[in-house]
Structure formats: structure tokens, C-alpha cells
């Protein structure tokens, strides 16, 4: 029995090493806040650890942790809109990522300006490479709504990228 527990523990450590960074990155893409991203990732991993005897047999245990993280993020959005607005205010003060390049920074700035659901759909669809059906399942939305949100999000990004405000950001960066 002990050997089995130890084996499971080791297996979880491997899982942690593989997924921690990815989950933290996903959390950041959803929140624009590394502190909150860290919290979301840790929370998702602790919950995954609790369910590990059941989850480790899954074909993709990482998908379970991702689902926990996305659910947790949705829950936080619902429960703390005021806090979310406060955090949104903080995001503007964070340092940008110089290695993104000018166009990347402009695009990331546009992503951060998207409504939460549009942003989550685009992050899951294009960063996590999830099919729209999986995105719909993760976010608890109808497939048609996900398609619509993705379409409108991309259209808005296109529009934002060509907008005078983005040109100004681009100008400031250059």
C-alpha cells in the first residue's frame, strides 16, 4: 500500500512539473495578473491532487486540471466582479513583455481589452488549441455561443489593431 502511495505521489510530482507552467500561463492569459494566475494554478493543482487517485488514470490528467482552473476562474468572475474591475485597473500598470515585439504587444493589449468571455474563448481556442466543442464544454456555453464569441472576438481584434488607439500604442512602443 505504501509503495502504491509513494508511486502515486511521484507520479503527481511529474504531472506537476509538466503542467504547472502551462496552467500558470493559462491563468495569466485569462487574468493578466501573475499573482492571480499563480493562485489559480495552485488551486487547480491542489484540487487535482485531491482527486489524483481517480484522475491519474485519465488519458489526459492535464485536461482535468485545466478544467478546474477555468471553472475556478469563471467562479471568481461571477463572485467578485468588483474585485475583477479592481484587478483590471491593476493590469494596466503591469510591465509589458518586451520580447513580444511591437505587434505582439499591441495584439496582447487588444486581447486584454476584450470582454472576459470573448477573451476566454480565444485563449482556449488558440493558446490551448482546443476545438470549439471542447471550449464550449469547458466554459459551460452552447457551441453556437462559442462560435459567435470567437468570431466577434477576432473581428474586434482586427478592428482594434487598425484603430487610432492601437496606432498610438504602437507609436509609443516604437
Amino acid at each position, binding site marked *: 500500500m505504501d509503495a502504491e502511495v509513494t508511486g502515486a505521489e511521484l507520479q503527481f510530482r511529474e504531472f506537476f512539473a509538466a503542467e504547472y*507552467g*502551462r496552467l500558470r500561463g493559462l491563468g495569466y*492569459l485569462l487574468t493578466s495578473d501573475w499573482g492571480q494566475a499563480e493562485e489559480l494554478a495552485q488551486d487547480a493543482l491542489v484540487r487535482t491532487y485531491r482527486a489524483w487517485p481517480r484522475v491519474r488514470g485519465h488519458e489526459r490528467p492535464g485536461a482535468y486540471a485545466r478544467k478546474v482552473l477555468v471553472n475556478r476562474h469563471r467562479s471568481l468572475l461571477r463572485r467578485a466582479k468588483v474585485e475583477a474591475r479592481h484587478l483590471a485597473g491593476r493590469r494596466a500598470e503591469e510591465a509589458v513583455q518586451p520580447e513580444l515585439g511591437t505587434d505582439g504587444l499591441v495584439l496582447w493589449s487588444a486581447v486584454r481589452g476584450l470582454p472576459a468571455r470573448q477573451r476566454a474563448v480565444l*485563449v482556449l481556442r*488558440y493558446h490551448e*488549441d482546443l476545438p470549439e466543442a471542447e471550449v464550449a464544454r469547458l466554459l459551460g456555453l452552447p457551441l453556437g455561443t462559442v462560435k459567435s464569441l470567437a468570431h466577434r472576438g477576432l473581428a474586434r481584434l482586427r478592428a482594434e489593431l487598425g484603430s487610432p488607439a492601437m496606432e498610438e500604442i504602437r507609436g509609443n512602443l516604437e
Partner: protein
Amino acid sequence: MIEDRLKETLDRVAGGGPDEAGGFDRFLRHRRASRSRRLAGATALVLVAALVSAVVLPRLLADTAQRRLVVTGAAGPERWLDGPLVAVAPLQGFEVKVPAGWEASATWKGIELRPTSPGLRRHLAAPVQLVTGLLEQFYNPAPNAGKDGTYDDLDDREVLPGALTRRPEGHQSRGSFPGGTRWFRTDLRAGPWRTTQWHISWPYRCEPGVPCPAVPLALRTLKVVYQVDADTDAAAEVDGLAGRLLRTARPIANAAKGQAHAPRPDCADGRSMVLKRASDDMLDYPGLSTVAHFWWWARTTANLVPCTVRGPLGVELLDGSGRRLDVQGNGRTVTQVAELPEAMTAPTEPGRMELRLRWFNWCDFGGPTWMRWIGAPGPGTAFPVTAPRCVDRSKPSRLMVDHILR
């Protein structure tokens, strides 16, 4: 393509965070904190459960003991409630605890009780009745307490005006409960069944400014009546219940000093009131009487709640085609006629209501005259009546309320 640029940007952003070093240590701390929170939550749940068991549950149980069955004097479906509970009968002026093992139901008169055990219930011919009422002077437990006796023992000076004296059925006994409450009891044996009535004096306090009912209030009693299989253990058990009910009953409302009386319900004919009506039998002496009389009478039926005769009561005088006769006051009615008290067990007790109307000086001899009772239960059938003799043709014919006796 915007999609490709977006993916590339998102991947770079996600991978560009602070150093991941120490992530697992933070995970371990996070896990410990999570465990502590869960443990604290579980502890809180345990504490809440302990609090519920220690404080809330006993209160809930106490509330259960304080469940109430309220007698309103209104009709309703038979509904039995398990004891322990408190039965409250403000119109009868008592409150009593119904013990566990018995269930109670409200009736017109007070409450009924029956055992929850089918074995015991089998030995009762009917539910035990707990009611108030006015007792014949003969039975009055107060002046005769402590004495076994018969009709011959009765002191004539104790008989109140208007009270009936008649020989009670069965064996009588009198005694006192511990604490001094005196009781009077009759037992009548018929085959295996024994019918028992217990009485104790029960006060009636008139409200300030409101005339007292015209009945011998000193003879008001709280009574338990039951019919039990006399040769079984059930008899002793039901006797014990009766004694317990009478010993622990508490006066409230019209039986308690300084308490307001409960609002009286309206009397209903045949249910809480017997309503009768009559007119002079003038057909035998046509044209001889100068006045035609019409009477309404009402009295409460035995041991029921006091009630108000609401009315309207009156008389309508008609011609042969159903039109009202030209009589002053024709069709006039009286409302809020009387406040009827709890009745005595005999039908000639005081306190009944009488409403008399007089019709006189009918000088139109154009045809037959009819009358109809206004306020009578059932369809308003018209009856032929002989009109009063014409006395003064220059004066109008009149129908008027002669008197109301309450």
C-alpha cells in the same frame, strides 16, 4: 492571418512569466493551507452539529411540546394531532396539556381525545370529550364537594332561580384533587360500558362594560365525558387521563381575570343554535284580535360555544300575489339580535333570545294576507295569516318590534 498572430502572441505571453522556481514548495504550502481550511470547515460543522444537539434541538423539542390545537368554534375537517401539545379553547375558557400517547381534535364544543394505541382505543366507545357548560344546580360540585349524595341531599337554598333540578343518572360521587380542586362525578353502567362524567367548577368572568349572560354563571363547569369498557385496564387509564386533564387545565380568556374574551362566532341554526318561530294562531278567531304577533326564539344548543345571533331577522307581510302589503315597518329586520351564552343541558334554561313583532290596525279587506319569515333557514316560504282587526281607519297599519329579550 490574425489567428496565427494571436496564437503566437498568446503562447509567448503565457510562457513569459516570472521564474517558476519554488512552484512545488508553494504547492505544498497551498495544499497544507487547503487542508487546514477543510479541517476548520469540518470542525465548524461538528461544532454547529454539537450546538444544534445541545441548544437548538432541545428548543425544537420544547416547541414541539408547545404545539397548539386551537378550538375556534368553526366547522372543519376532523384533524387529530399527536400529544404532547397544548389544546387552547378560548371560547370555552380553558387551556389543557394533552399528554403523549393521546391525540386531540377540535370540535364545536371543545376538544376530543383518543389514545394513539389501537389496543386502548378499542376499549373506548367514543373519543373522550373535554368541554365547558352550565350544570344543573343539583350537580354543582362547589357547595357539595366532598359529599356523596343523591337528590335528597340537595339544600333548596342552593338552588339558583332558573336552574333545573332533576335526578342525575347513575352513581354520584364527589371529592377533591390534591391541591383542593373539588370534583363531582357520575358513573352509569350499561352492559360492559361505563359512561362517566367529571365536573369541576369553572369560572366565567364578565367583561367590563358588557352585560353578563343571563344564566347562573356559578354553575359553569369544565367537564370530561367518556364511555369506557369498565372491566379492562383501559378504564383506569382513561380515569387517570380525565383526572389529569381536570387537575392541570388552566383558565384563559372568559375564565381568567383581566383577560379579553375571544370574539364570539355567529350562531348557526341547528349547529350552535336552535332557532324557532311562531305566530298567533288567529285562523281560529278571524277578525277578533286587534294585534297579530310573530315570535323568533333562539337558544344555544347544549355545551356549545357562546355565539352571536347575527340576523337579520324579521317578518314580511304579503298580499295574495306576493306583493308587500302597505304596512308601516313591513319587511324591517333586526340585526345583531342577541349574545347567546353557553347553554345548560336542559332546554328551558334562561338566556335564550326572543324577538317579538306586532302587527295591528289592518283596514284593507281586499283579500287574503300572507307572511314570510325573513332570516329563516331554507327557502322563504309564505304562509297565510289572519290580519289584525281594523281599529282606526284614519291611522296607518303598522308592523313593529315589540320587544327583544336576550
